[in-house]
C-alpha cells in the first residue's frame, strides 16, 4: 500500500514514515501543500495523510481540491486543531478521518488500517485467497497455515494483489504503487520481485503461477481451482471480477435503457406504418400486390437503428435482443425499399419479439469467436402463402433466424449461386444452415404450375451442386415415390408431404439437423479440473447443459441423477479409470445406446481400439478444438436421437 504524507514537521514526518515502513507501507513524504497536490495528482496512493497547516496550500484546501477533481482515496487529517468546528470543517472538506496531535501511534496505525479496509470494502481484517492468508495487523503471511517469510517489497506486492484481487497490474502500475517516487527501479526489478514471491509461495505448496502473468497486460492472482467447477466458472477471482462487472453493467443499463426503448419504438412505428399503407386495388392481380414501400431514407435509418441496437444490446449481454436486432437489419438489407407481405409479417414479428427481449437483464457476454449464431433458415416461397408466414413466425418464436424470399432470383443472390464455384464459402454474407423450399401453390390448389415447378426443381439441383453440404428441405403436395426419388436425386435432404402443420415442420427439421441440440445434457468426467474448465468454456457457445465431475467415485450417483444425453470420459483417472466407467454404463440395458465419447492425451491405437471394444462411440485426442469437438458431439447426439425415435 502506498501512502502520501504531507506534513512540514520533519521530525514527526520522519517518525511516522518509519512506523509506516515497518508496517510495509510505502511512503512518500512532502512538506508543502502544492507539492502534495503534484504528487497526489501524478501517482496513485491508497491513502493520503495531511497536516492542516501547510506552506503554499493548506491541508484543508488540498483535501477539497482532491475531492473536486474526483480523487477518492481515503484522506486522514492529522492536526493540532482540536476544536469541534475544526473537525467538522475538516470532515466536510472531504477527509475520512481526523486525528488530533499529539496522537498515539498505535491508534493512528489502526485507524489507517480501518480506512484502507473500508475503502476496499473488506469485512475481515485478514486477506485470504484460497489457502493463502495475509494478516495486515501482524504482517504475517501463511499458506496452508505454514508461515511464509517475505521481504518488504514482496509483502507489499502480495498485499496489493489481495486488496485488488479482481485487477491485473502492469509492471509500470506496480512500480507506481509499490515503489516510492525516490526509488528508480526498472520493470526488471518488478519481474525479479514477482519471481522471488512466486518461488517462496511455491516452496510452501502454492502453484508456480499463483500470481499469473496475463500476456500483454501484467500480473494478477490466479483463481484458485475449485473442486466443483460450477459449470466452468470456478474460482473466486473470476467470480469476483464477474460480479463487479455485472453490477456496473446493470447500473449502466438502468441509466441508458430508455435510449434503446426509443430506438425500438421507432421500429414499432415503422412496422405500423407498413401495415397501414393502402394498396392500389387495381394491382390486385399484379405480382407486386401487397408489397409496401419505404423511402430510401426510412430504409437506411431503420437499418442503422437495428444495427446500433444490435451493438448496444450485445454489449449489455441481452443476447436475444441482439440476435433479433441483427435479423431486422438483415431483413431490411435484403428487402431494400420494397417489402413483400411475408417480409412485413416477419418484420412485425421480429420487432414485437424484440420488445419482449428488452425486458431481459444484462448478462456477461461469453467468448463469441466461434459462437454459432441463431440457426438461420432460408425459406423460398414464390407464392407468399399465409402458411409460410405462420411457419416463419413460429421459427422466430423458437429462436431460429428465418429469412423468407419470394423469388428464385433473390434466393440465388443470397446463396451466391451465380458466383464461381471456387469462391470461398466465407464470402457468403450469412450462409444459412438450411434451405426450405415450398413447392405448394396455395391452400386451395396446392399443385404449382408446371413452368414454376420446373424452375424450382432446377434451382434445387443448382443449389445442391453449389453447396452440397447445405441441407435442403422441400414441402410438396406430390410426395409419392417417383416425385420423392426425383427430389432426393436433385439434392433434397428431407421431403415433407403437404399438408403438414408448421410446428411439425420445425420439429422434423430439428430432429434431422443440428438445430435443436443446444439443450442436450452432457456429462464430462475428468480428474483434471483445469482441463475440465477449458472444455466447458470451449463448449459454452453451444449452450449444452453440462455436468462436470472431477471425482470418478461420485460418478454413478450423479449419472443417475442427471441421466445425460451424452457422456465424455477421460481415460486415466485415479481409483476408477474411464474404461471402467464405460463398462459400467454399458452393463446396464437402459444405457446401451447412450453416446460415450473418450477424450484423452493418449493417441496410441491400442487404447483407442480398447475404448471402441468396450462400447465407445468416439475417441478424441487432446488438445481439443472447440468447434471440432462440438461438431462431433452434435453428430453423436443427432444419431442417438434418431435411434431413440426408432425405438419409440
Amino acid at each position, binding site marked *: 500500500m502506498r501512502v502520501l504524507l504531507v506534513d512540514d514537521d520533519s521530525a514527526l514526518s520522519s517518525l511516522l514514515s518509519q512506523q509506516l515502513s515497518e508496517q510495509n507501507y510505502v511512503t512518500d513524504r512532502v512538506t508543502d501543500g502544492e507539492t502534495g497536490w503534484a504528487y497526489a495528482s501524478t501517482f496513485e496512493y491508497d491513502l493520503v495523510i495531511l497536516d492542516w497547516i501547510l506552506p503554499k496550500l493548506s491541508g484543508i484546501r488540498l483535501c477539497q481540491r482532491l475531492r473536486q477533481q474526483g480523487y477518492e482515496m481515503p484522506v486522514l487529517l492529522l492536526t493540532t486543531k482540536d476544536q469541534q468546528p475544526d473537525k467538522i470543517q475538516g470532515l466536510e472538506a472531504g477527509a475520512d478521518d481526523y486525528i488530533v496531535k499529539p496522537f498515539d501511534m498505535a491508534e493512528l496505525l489502526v485507524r489507517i488500517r480501518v480506512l484502507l479496509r473500508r475503502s476496499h470494502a473488506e469485512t475481515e481484517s485478514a486477506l485470504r485467497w484460497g489457502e493463502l492468508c495475509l494478516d495486515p495487523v501482524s504482517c504475517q503471511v501463511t499458506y496452508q497455515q505454514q508461515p511464509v517469510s517475505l521481504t518488504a517489497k514482496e509483502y507489499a506486492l502480495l498485499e496489493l494483489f489481495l486488496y485488488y484481487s479482481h*485487477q491485473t497490474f502492469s509492471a509500470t*502500475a506496480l512500480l507506481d504503487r509499490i515503489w516510492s517516487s525516490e526509488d528508480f527501479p526498472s520493470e526488471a526489478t518488478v519481474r525479479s520481485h514477482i519471481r522471488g514471491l512466486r518461488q517462496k509461495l511455491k516452496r510452501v505448496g502454492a502453484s508456480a503461477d499463483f500470481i499469473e502473468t496475463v*500476456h*500483454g497486460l*501484467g500480473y494478477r492472482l490466479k483463481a484458485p481451482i475449485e473442486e466443483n467447477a460450477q459449470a466452468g466458472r470456478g474460482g473466486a477471482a473470476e467470480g469476483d471480477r464477474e460480479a463487479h462487472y455485472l453490477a456496473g453493467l446493470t447500473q449502466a443499463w438502468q441509466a441508458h435503457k430508455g435510449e434503446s426503448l426509443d430506438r425500438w419504438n421507432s421500429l414499432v412505428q415503422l412496422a405500423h406504418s407498413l401495415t397501414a399503407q393502402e394498396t392500389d386495388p387495381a394491382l390486385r392481380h399484379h405480382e407486386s400486390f401487397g408489397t409496401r414501400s419505404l423511402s430510401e431514407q426510412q430504409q437506411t435509418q431503420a437499418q442503422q437503428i437495428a444495427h446500433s441496437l444490435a*451493438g448496444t444490446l450485445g*454489449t449489455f449481454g441481452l*443476447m436475444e435482443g441482439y440476435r433479433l436486432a441483427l435479423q431486422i437489419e438483415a431483413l431490411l438489407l435484403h428487402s431494400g425499399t420494397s417489402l413483400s407481405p411475408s417480409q412485413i409479417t416477419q418484420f412485425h414479428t421480429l420487432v414485437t419479439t424484440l420488445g419482449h427481449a428488452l425486458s431481459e437483464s444484462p448478462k456477461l*457476454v461469453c*467468448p463469441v469467436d466461434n459462437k454459432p449464431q441463431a440457426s438461420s433458415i432460408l425459406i423460398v416461397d414464390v407464392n407468399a402463402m399465409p402458411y409460410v408466414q405462420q411457419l416463419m413466425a413460429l421459427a422466430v418464436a423458437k429462436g431460429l433466424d428465418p429469412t423468407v424470399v419470394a423469388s428464385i432470383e433473390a434466393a440465388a443472390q443470397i446463396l451466391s449461386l451465380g458466383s464461381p464455384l471456387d469462391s470461398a464459402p466465407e464470402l457468403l454474407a450469412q450462409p444459412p444452415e438450411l434451405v426450405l423450399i415450398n413447392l405448394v401453390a396455395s391452400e386451395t390448389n396446392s399443385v404449382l404450375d408446371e413452368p414454376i415447378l420446373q424452375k424450382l426443381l432446377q434451382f434445387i439441383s443448382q443449389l445442391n451442386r453449389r453447396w452440397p453440404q447445405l441441407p435442403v428441405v422441400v414441402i410438396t403436395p406430390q410426395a409419392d415415390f417417383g416425385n420423392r426419388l426425383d427430389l432426393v436425386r436433385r439434392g433434397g435432404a428431407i421431403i415433407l408431404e403437404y399438408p403438414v402443420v408448421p410446428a411439425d415442420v420445425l420439429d422434423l427439421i430439428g430432429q434431422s439437423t443440428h438445430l435443436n441440440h443446444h439443450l442436450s445434457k452432457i456429462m464430462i468426467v475428468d480428474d483434471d479440473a483445469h482441463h475440465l474448465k477449458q472444455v466447458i468454456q470451449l463448449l459454452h457457445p453451444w449452450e449444452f447443459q453440462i455436468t462436470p465431475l472431477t471425482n470418478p467415485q461420485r460418478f454413478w450417483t450423479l449419472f443417475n441423477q442427471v441421466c445425460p444425453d451424452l457422456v465424455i470420459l477421460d481415460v486415466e483417472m485415479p481409483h476408477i479409470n474411464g474404461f471402467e466407467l464405460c463398462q459400467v454404463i454399458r452393463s446396464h440395458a437402459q444405457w446401451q445406446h447412450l453416446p460415450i465419447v473418450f477424450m484423452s492425451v493418449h493417441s496410441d491405437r491400442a487404447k483407442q481400439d480398447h475404448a471402441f471394444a468396450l462400447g465407445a462411440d468416439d475417441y478424441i485426442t487432446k488438445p481439443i478444438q472447440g468447434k471440432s469437438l462440438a461438431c462431433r458431439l452434435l453428430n453423436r447426439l443427432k444419431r442417438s436421437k434418431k435411434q431413440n425415435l426408432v425405438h419409440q
Partner: protein
Amino acid sequence: MSTKSVLIIDDEVSIQKVVSLSLQMEANWTVMTASSGQEGIRQAERHRPDVILLDVMMPEVDGIATFEALQNNPITQTIPVVLLTAKTRTAEKQLFEKLGVAGVITKPFPPLALASEIAKLVDWTM
C-alpha cells in the same frame, strides 16, 4: 510511469461506460471518452492516448472518416486505432483492415477479455 491510456470514441454514452468498465476492471487502464469524431480527434491531439477504440457507425463524422482524419494528422497518426463495431461481414472486416487499422473488435465482446484482445491487436507485450 503510468498505465496504458485508451481513448474511446463512441456516440453512445452507454457503450462508453461499459467499455470503460471492462478496461478498468481487467487491466486498470486509464480511459478517456469522446462522443463524436471531432471531439475524439481533439482529445487524441491533446492527450495522445496509447490506443484509440473507435466506433464505426456514428452520426456526422463516422468512424472511417474519423480514422482517416487521425491518420492525416501528424500528431495522432502513430496512435494505433482499433475499430469497435456491431457484427460485420467478412468483406467489411477485410475492408476495415485494409484501411490500416490495428484491428477490428466485434460487439458483443467478452468484457473481461477486451483489454487482452486490444493488447494482442496492437502487439503490446510485457
